């Protein structure tokens, strides 16, 4: 808009004032992304002299090799489990806490602790807890095999279920799973820790959303005939939390795509690549194996996912949940 600009005699000053921020943004955001984008078309590795242009080779690999298929499927599994469960639990917990007359702060603090704790340190705690022989989880589970009442309840034998067909019964006979060492359990275990960590954050966001709903809306819902808690939730709470939900979903999605520290600390992508998530793949290829080109290609794919999510969020915010 040269016209609009020329109307302001001090536009030189204006540009000067904006410049530092612009320069910073270009240097620390655009340039690295551009470099990653360019590198993804090469077979560059750190320290090498030449830069071989390989075209779409890296992308072809990413979308065809079975390692990367595992990468996508484990990442998607993680996202598909962690996002709905941690958002749902966050909402549920915030509703319960919000309805308390006292003790709100205690619960808030407890559930928020995992968010504040360094995940790497927490991962070590989890590693101990999940240890197949000395871990408290399997210890507790096998202790339950001795208790008749619990055993018959957990195996379903109290209503005539065959003990050996139940998960718990088999666990008691053959030992409980190697949570992190079994390819059928590892990703779910990582996802469980992810939920444990993410849900407190979502809960706090939802609590903020809840406290901004005017009590008069509930009163008017009550007078309008919304008698059950469910109908008030449908009429007031859920729609009013719309903006919060979009934000919580976006943040949780992006953070779930970024899962890395638990994987690095607990499984290193294994067993049999069952926890080989995208961030870990980037780290392994580009840093450990020094295959910068392929690492950059995965990064670009990753960034496009994030970009897509962000665009959907913007669209949702503009379209559907904007009331003001």
């Amino acid at each position, binding site marked *: 808009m040269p016209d609009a600009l020329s109307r302001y005699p001090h536009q030189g000053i204006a540009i000067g004032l904006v410049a530092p921020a612009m320069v910073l943004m270009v240097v620390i955001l655009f340039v690295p992304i551009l470099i990653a984008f360019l590198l993804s078309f090469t077979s560059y590795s750190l320290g090498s002299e030449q830069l071989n242009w390989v075209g779409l080779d890296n992308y072809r690999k990413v979308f065809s090799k079975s390692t990367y298929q595992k990468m996508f499927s484990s990442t998607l599994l993680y996202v598909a489990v962690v996002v709905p469960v941690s958002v749902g639990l966050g909402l549920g917990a915030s509703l319960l806490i919000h309805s308390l007359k006292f003790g709100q702060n205690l619960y808030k603090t407890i559930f928020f602790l995992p968010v504040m704790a360094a995940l790497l340190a927490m991962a070590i705690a989890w590693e101990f807890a999940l240890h197949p022989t000395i871990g408290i989880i399997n210890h507790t589970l096998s202790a339950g095999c001795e208790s008749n009442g619990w055993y018959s309840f957990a195996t379903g034998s109290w209503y005539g279920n065959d003990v050996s067909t139940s998960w718990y019964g088999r666990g008691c006979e053959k030992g409980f799973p190697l949570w992190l060492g079994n390819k059928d359990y590892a990703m779910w275990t990582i996802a469980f820790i992810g939920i444990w960590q993410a849900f407190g954050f979502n809960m706090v966001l939802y609590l903020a959303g809840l406290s901004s709903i005017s009590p008069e*809306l509930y009163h*008017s819902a*009550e*007078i*309008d005939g*919304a008698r059950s808690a469910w*109908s008030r939730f449908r009429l007031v709470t859920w729609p009013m939390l*719309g903006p919060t939900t979009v934000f919580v979903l976006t943040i949780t999605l992006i953070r779930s795509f970024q899962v890395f520290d638990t994987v690095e600390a607990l499984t290193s992508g294994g067993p049999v690549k069952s926890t080989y998530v995208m961030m870990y793949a980037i780290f392994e290829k580009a840093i450990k194996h020094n295959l910068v080109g392929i690492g950059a290609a995965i990064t670009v794919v990753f960034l496009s996912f994030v970009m897509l999510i962000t665009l959907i969020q913007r669209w949702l915010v503009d379209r559907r*949940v904007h*009331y003001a």
Partner: protein
Amino acid sequence: MASISLRNIGKSFGQTNVINRLGLDIADGEFLTLVGPSGCGKSTLLRIIAGLETPTEGDVLIDGKASIKLRPSERNLAMVFQSYALYPHLSVYDNIAVPMRMRQFTRWQRIPFVRRLVKGTRSVSQDIDEKVKAVSEKLGLSPLLNRKPGELSGGQKQRVALGRAIVRDPVAFLFDEPLSNLDAKLRVHMRSEIIDLQRKLASTFVYVTHDQAEAMTMSDRIAVMMQGDLIQVGTPEDIYLNPQDLRVAEFIGSPKINVLSAMTNQFGQVCLNETPVRFRIADESSTEISIAVRPESLFVCNPSPAAIPGQIKHIEYMGDQAYLYVDIEKQSQRIIIKVLPTQLAGYEIGSAIHVGFDAKDALLFDQDGQRIYATPSPRSVVNA
């Protein structure tokens, strides 16, 4: 249509008493205004009637039926909130339809899309649709039905809130300062719309406001509340002419009533600034009392021993009338005299004048603010 009776209602939040055991009978079809300064407990009382707040003691009878245990929705009252409390995600149409849907639809029919699968939805829907259309027609909302509350002006939101209240047939309407978010002109206009509405519906209206002008112009009866007490209930004329409490006299009427502090002597004579004025009270001992006189009952008069000397400090010209602000010796409160603009000639700020009033226009209050009466009440003028 119902009468509402409050029996011995008390409410405290923890240690603070907000409402002190009060009783009130509101007749069927009456427009009753609860008026009082901010924080006196009006909203709390209204919310107790609505069932949104449980009183610490007492009962609410709606049409003679003890209702304290009933949920708000079971009392079948409608309420209009100060903030309108419209559902921001719903269109005007849906906002008005909500009370109907909540009451007439079953659980499954309330879920969009699913409702189409349930038998009988269509006829209920049509019924609701007709009602909503009729109400929005009546309130001039028809062109706005698809808008969201965020796209409406204050006055339009107000109308939607009214529409949501009248769409079903509640037994009574409760209003909590519904006009206080509107600009002055719209407020006056909406007053008459609400009065019209009440005449048309012939329903019971309980209207809360802190604005004495609203209370005076709209109500059949006014209930004045102060600090959790109901201090006087009566028609607007009664409240204005015969306040039983100094606080009522001071709250109702604009500009405020003039209060002069006076003494009685051992003969029961009332003395203003040590000069006996021509009325006496029964109690023959010397005590402090207050003489309250409305600005329109004061006049400027010729000097005489009984007239009150003062000095004009400020003149407010309003076009059809004017107010003289006058300082009087030994009186802490500046008094206001209402005069016709034609009487202003010859007066200016600083002029020394004499003020008088007719004894029958003076209201006497004892030290506790309770009304006392002059005996006998001679037809006399103070400056006679």
